[in-house]
């Protein structure tokens, strides 16, 4: 009894100790900010949290525009754009960065330059966060360096911050970038993965050109899209000022950053060179900031999910594939209209000896952007053949079999292993093309076990050039605008232009930055998204199109074994791209407004 009592008492006195267990991975602020490695670790966390919009870790995001379509199983029936399309509203990140800033400014664990660089990177990422927020939502509350705290029972109205105007938001981003550019490093970081003076200037240029074009084109094209307090919409009077800022920032990058357009003189190597400029990290002189990946550690499944069927390395393949609309957007080297020549004047098929012949003389960047029928990937020809056709009594009859079927007698392909097919099969091409840009040729990069370490560029040097072109043109300096635009066209390997217009800027951005998260935002800031994606069920600008190659199967006929092509709408059930006026700005969640009555709604909400 006594023993039992002693045991009980002694145990109960240390009950609390008994319950105080130690967590494995929770560190104190002191532990973190006394060690430069841990400070880097916090920055790494922030870098990992800023991947928004269209990007290669979300291949489905490519099906939202007019660049690609869902090839896996049934058709994507989405056609409009959601009220929260690519919306960014991450004040938790803003708060975390502000927490970090307060601590890193106080740390004694680093030398001053390193400390400033860390501060600069954090402020760059904060500006980038505001920028991504602003391009979807317009002006939102700017909280500065404040780290909000909460105690039960406190007056919460002291925490309420009203929305800034859209102009104030861009001004804030521009101001932050200007300040940090003054002290951030000019050294090129490994694989463009960290922010430098040049990324700050690129963000400044991009923010300014966005602000400028909204100021100009919102007034011109969609004057109704404003709010009373200016949370949405920028006065036209400010356009020129912003264009000038954009031009100036872009020029600094062009002239003094040391980055340059990657180019070769041999026209047959232009295509590969452009691919390298976008997709190859080594000796890259063009990518200023990218989301980098590394194996082992951090890889993604873009290659795994979208690799051509015939060179698949694992179960997954061909989930999303590019559409004909993008392919036709690329000009011919010497011809502005990039439409493929499929039918003659009578509406009869134009017959090609080889599948790739229909793509002859197209912009070399097209080769670097998509894999089209007959091209090689990983050293293997990627066949794309929907079936065979024969002309019987004046009517073309198609013969379609399971993918991978060959003629038992002639051993010629009937339907290639890659398709395309028009059914609802999984893992089968439905559009006639595959991605090339961002698709990794590294062995095993298309497996689930390894994945790809292909990077995703966020700022390329050519953007600085195209911003300079656009800003110059808008500032009535067509000759300089033309000079900059032709730099990009010359590098691409297509004809230079004698004069340029606004539409040339639109066109060049589309093909130069395909799959790089530009097009949606560009069409929005120019206020032409509702006109391009106007909901027409047939037109090339809004309805997704696919290309089905067939081989003529008419033994003895002159055309036997040659290629003809059907341009057709993407599968039944896919609806047209339809961008409405309300899509120019995301909606605010009702709950945000409930929580902060100072927030006003966006137009059409």
């Amino acid at each position, binding site marked *: *009894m006594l023993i*039992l009592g002693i045991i*009980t008492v002694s*145990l*109960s006195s240390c009950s*609390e100790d008994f*319950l*105080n267990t130690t*967590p494995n991975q*929770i*560190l*104190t*602020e002191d532990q*973190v900010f006394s060690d430069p490695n*841990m400070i880097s*670790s*916090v*920055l*790494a*966390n922030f870098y*990992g*949290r800023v991947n928004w919009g269209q990007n290669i870790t979300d291949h489905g995001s490519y099906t939202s525009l007019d660049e690609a379509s869902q090839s896996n199983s*049934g058709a994507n*029936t989405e056609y409009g754009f959601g009220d929260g399309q690519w919306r960014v509203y991450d*004040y938790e990140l803003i*708060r*975390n960065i502000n927490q970090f800033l307060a601590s890193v400014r106080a740390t004694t664990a680093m030398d001053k330059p390193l400390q400033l660089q860390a501060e600069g990177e954090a402020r760059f990422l904060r500006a980038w966060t505001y920028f991504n927020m602003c391009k979807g939502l317009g002006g939102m*509350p700017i*909280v500065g360096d404040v780290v*909000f705290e909460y105690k*039960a029972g406190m007056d*919460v109205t002291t925490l309420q*911050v009203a929305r800034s105007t859209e102009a104030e938001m861009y001004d804030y981003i521009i101001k932050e970038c200007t300040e940090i550019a003054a002290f951030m490093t000019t050294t090129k970081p*490994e694989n463009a*993965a960290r922010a430098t003076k040049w990324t700050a200037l690129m963000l400044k240029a991009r923010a300014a050109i966005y602000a400028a074009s909204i100021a100009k084109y919102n007034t011109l094209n969609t004057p109704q899209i404003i709010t009373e307090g200016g949370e949405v919409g920028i006065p036209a009077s400010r356009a020129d000022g912003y264009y000038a800022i954009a031009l100036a920032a872009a020029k600094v990058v062009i002239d003094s950053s040391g980055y340059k357009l990657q180019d070769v003189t041999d026209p047959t190597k232009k295509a590969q060179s452009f691919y390298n400029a976008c997709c190859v990290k080594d000796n890259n002189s063009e990518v200023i900031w990218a*989301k980098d990946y*590394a194996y082992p550690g*951090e890889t993604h499944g873009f290659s795994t999910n979208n690799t051509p069927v015939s060179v*698949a*390395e694992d*179960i997954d393949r061909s989930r999303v594939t590019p559409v004909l609309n993008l392919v036709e957007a690329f000009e011919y080297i010497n011809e502005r209209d990039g439409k493929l020549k499929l039918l003659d004047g009578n509406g009869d098929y134009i017959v090609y000896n080889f599948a790739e012949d229909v793509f002859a003389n197209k912009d070399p960047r097209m080769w670097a952007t998509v894999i089209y029928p007959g091209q090689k990937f990983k050293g293997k020809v990627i066949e794309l053949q*929907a*079936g065979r056709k024969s002309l019987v009594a004046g009517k073309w009859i198609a013969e379609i079999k399971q993918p*991978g079927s060959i003629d*038992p007698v002639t*051993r010629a392909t009937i339907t290639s*292993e890659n398709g395309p097919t*028009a*059914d*609802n*099969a*999984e893992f*089968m091409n439905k559009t006639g093309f595959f991605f090339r840009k961002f698709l990794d040729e590294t*062995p095993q990069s298309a497996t689930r076990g390894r994945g790809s*370490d292909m990077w995703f560029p966020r700022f390329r040097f050519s953007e600085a050039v195209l911003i300079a072109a656009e800003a110059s043109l808008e500032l009535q300096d067509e000759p300089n605008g033309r000079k900059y635009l032709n730099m990009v066209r010359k590098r691409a390997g297509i004809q230079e232009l004698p004069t340029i217009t606004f539409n040339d800027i639109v066109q060049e951005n589309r093909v130069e930055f395909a799959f790089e998260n530009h097009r949606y935002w560009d069409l929005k800031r120019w206020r032409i998204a509702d006109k391009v994606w106007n909901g027409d069920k047939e037109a090339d600008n809004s309805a997704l199109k696919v290309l089905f190659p067939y081989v003529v199967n008419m033994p003895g006929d002159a055309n036997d074994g040659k290629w003809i092509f059907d341009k057709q709408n993407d599968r*039944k059930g896919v609806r047209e791209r339809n961008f409405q006026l309300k899509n120019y700005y995301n909606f605010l969640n009702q709950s*945000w407004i*409930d*929580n*902060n009555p100072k927030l006003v709604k966006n137009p059409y909400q």
Partner: protein
Amino acid sequence: MEKHAFQCFWSRGKLSLYVIAFSLFSGWNVFSSVATASEKATTATEETQQKRMVQGVIMSDQNEAIIGATVHVKGTTRGTMTDENGKFSIEAAMDAVLEVSYIGFLPQNIVAKTTTLNITLKEDSKQLGEILVTGFGLTQRKETLTGAVSSISSKEISRSSSSTTSGTLVGKIAGINSRQADGRPGASTSIQIRNMGTPLFVIDGIIQDEGQFNNIDFNDIESISILKDASAAIYGVRSANGVVVVNTKKGDRNTKPTVTLNATYGWQNLSTFPKPADAPTYIENYIQSQTIQGTKNPKYTVDDLAKWKAGTEKGYVPFDWYKFIWGTAPQTYVGVNINGGDDKTTYYVAVSHLNQDAMIKQYGGFTRSNIQMNIDSKITDKLKVGATMNGRIEERVNPGVPGQDDYWCPIFAVYRNLPMARPYANDNPKYPAKTSNNTDVNFAMLNYDLSGKMVDTWRVAQFNFNAEYELFKGLKAKGLFGYYMANRLMNNQEFTYDLFKYDEASDTYSYAFRNTNPWKERAQSLVETITSNVQLAYDNKFGKHGVQAVLAMETTTTENPNSWIHSIPASNALTLFDYTTLDTYNDNGVNTQARIGYIGRMNYNYDQKYLLELSARYDGSWKFPPTHRWGLFPSISAGWRITEEEFWKNSSFSNAFSDLKLRGSYGLLGDDNVDGYSAFDFMSGYNYNNGGSTIDGAYTIGTRPRSLPVTNLSWIKAKVLDLGLDVSFFQNRLTGTFDYFQRMRTGLTAPRYDVLLPSEVGFDLPRENLNSDASKGVDAMIRWSDNLGELHYSIGANATYARRYDWHQYKPRFSNSWNKYRNSINERYSYITWGYESDGQFQNWEEIADCDIDIDGKGNTSLRPGDIRYKDINGDKRINGLDESAIGYRQGSTPNLNFGFNFAFQYKTWDLAFDLTGGSGASWYQNWETRFPFHDGGNNPQSYMDDTWRLSDITDANSELIPGKYPTLLVGNSSHSNYWTSDFWMHNINYMKLRNLELGYNVPKNIIKKVGMTSLRLYFSGQNLLTFSNLQGTDPEITSDNGLQYPTTRIMNLGLILKY
């Protein structure tokens, strides 16, 4: 075969026949009163009679001598015990009444008319259940129990062909809701007590996880008690979902060593699985779809169809994937145990081995080896010590299947491979072909040789030591110390593999696909739990006042370090990991848990008539903020045995009642498993290894600031009320238990959202204990047992109805009445499934033209006869989200109602027992392969494709339509209005299964004695032999909505039990 409690008539030999007949025709009370009267008379005469020696032998009804049975002369202090031959002698008067009793057997009163007596005691399986373990190593007699505790004994448990323990409880006990969602080898049935959530498991006094419960050999279990109400409060902060208390078998005192061998061999096959459509059916439907959709470039033609129908021409021979993949598989069990003891020490030692192969051909399966050793010893009269040890090795083995779930691939293969595809190129078994766009589903490749091997092994050992010392009469000090260790090692290697195609002209095989994803992974985990439990127990009687009291303290700590590594081996032949190919190492930490509790319990009864129990536990959990760690969990229960009252005994109807008890309980239980809260959320700081990014050319692990500390949160509180009634009639021949219960839980967490914190502050309000839910229901058990000549029989029924409500929500608010109707969860059934209500199918084009409701959102332009019509609930002539209503119950979990019917018969050496079990009040949603036409280019069930609206001429879109159960199948049509969520596809399941059946033959003693055995039993047993369900072709218990899940198995066993 069970034998039940009416031996008092049975032992009177021929009288029993008369009794049964009499009872059937006259009712019970008349005869019973006669019997009682005659006993009173004999007692009165004892002292006046002359005494003489009476000798006798006491045998069991299995004809075995009973050693140590007590014989007592009624009304005197004289008593004795039987010797090792079951013999006794005692001095007794003529016509004195001898009271004969032995544990595990029904007591008998014998009138000593002669001086030599042959007494046969009847074994009483129910008697064993009469002593109930009510948790914490405490026991109570059923009569004086005040809580809602159901119990099941070893005999009923072992009547099962399940591979895991939970499966044995199905349908046998009131208060259990069950569902076996997946039947793969080694899988267990999910059980919940009154649908309250996953219960706490306690084995031999030690808190254990569900895996340990399921994988001890259930033949080693003596009894299982289910604490359904406030009686669970003694487990404090983890008791809110009820407690399952398991006791393993102990050796019997004063018995010679008995060796028991138990062996079964069984055949498993599929209970139900939807068969895929055959080639002609598939192609017919496909051509019809092309015809209706006007496909310009058709994939199949009528010529193709004819060839596939004939099935003889090369290249047109269909293939049956179902047969190729599914088969019959063995399940075997061998167990040996030795049981014995003298008057000081008892022991029970058992070893067993279970082997359950997969019904998927050559696909490995589940094996488990168990040992159990229980020893108890009385060191002195006051000191008892004991030790329990059990251990097991359980192993799951199957081919190293690419992709995710290893059982999914072959099951999916049945549907994803079209019946036109054949598994081998040119039918040459050396060359698996590419049979589908999904390169992972050719079953010809899913085997050890081609795709590697996965071995998942658990090695588990539990050691318990206990001691008990009697300080003085009635007061004992007890200690229990438990150490549990479980080690998991999972090694999975998935090979690279090749698929081939064949070129006939050149007679060569070439690669159609080469997988280059060699995958090698290893998961390692150690679970270590240390439990200590000390208590003081007092048990005494003061006149009519019975008192029991316990004070105790319990501590448990658990650590679970675990890690996972992955590599890309250079070759399939390499079986070891090496550093150079390693690319991931996840160290998931130690995950320490600590809990401590102080317990007090007191029972009081007055003359076993008025019963009261008070208990409380003061419990602390490491999870919560230091200021919110400790909780007090009190409970009270009380009972009234009306049959013990004089007024009742004197009443005219009292003879019909053997026992009648009213009881009620109320208590506060806790649950520290709180949604939206993790241990240490009360701490601020930074989380290491959270996010990260590739910077400076290499991946850098991230560190993330933690969100606002949660300082004002604690466990969930459950207030549990139970009102119950225990009755037994007619000398216990008819027994019943009825309970009403409700559990109100408060403290479900939510943020206090009326504090309008601007979202721009960048953190969420910490959660607090704000919301509540409720469960209400009834459970009941009733059983009739009797004899009909030499036929003993018993028929029982039990049912549990339990339904969850979401109860008070923190300040609910709604913008309008529809929003409230659709989204409120305040005081409403939980887990409602919403969808459209179908209103039949359009029978012809005229009906579609006449329909003034926009059904499909496209002005009805996409509709055809056979398509589904929806009810326009709000009358706005359009079908949209506003027309949704409640169409189903909860999906994927245990049903609201479970029931079971138990039958047992014994006739001489033969016995038969079976259980019908079933459920109702759960929903299954027909989806994917069983719903979408030609889903993702794959197949649909034959029964589906056979029964659609179809064209009389599949090549003529305008031909006459033939009605069917389902809409016409059109390729790529899965977003059509037909396939919207509606009650057309939602099935509210009702089912009943012949869950267990056992037919046994006990070889007569005189035969087996010659070979030295004491008993031999041969039996046939089966599980899931029949299923009655409103779901056609799909197992009603599976939860996967495509129907493609490893269903519960149908097992037929041959078995024997042999004793030496």
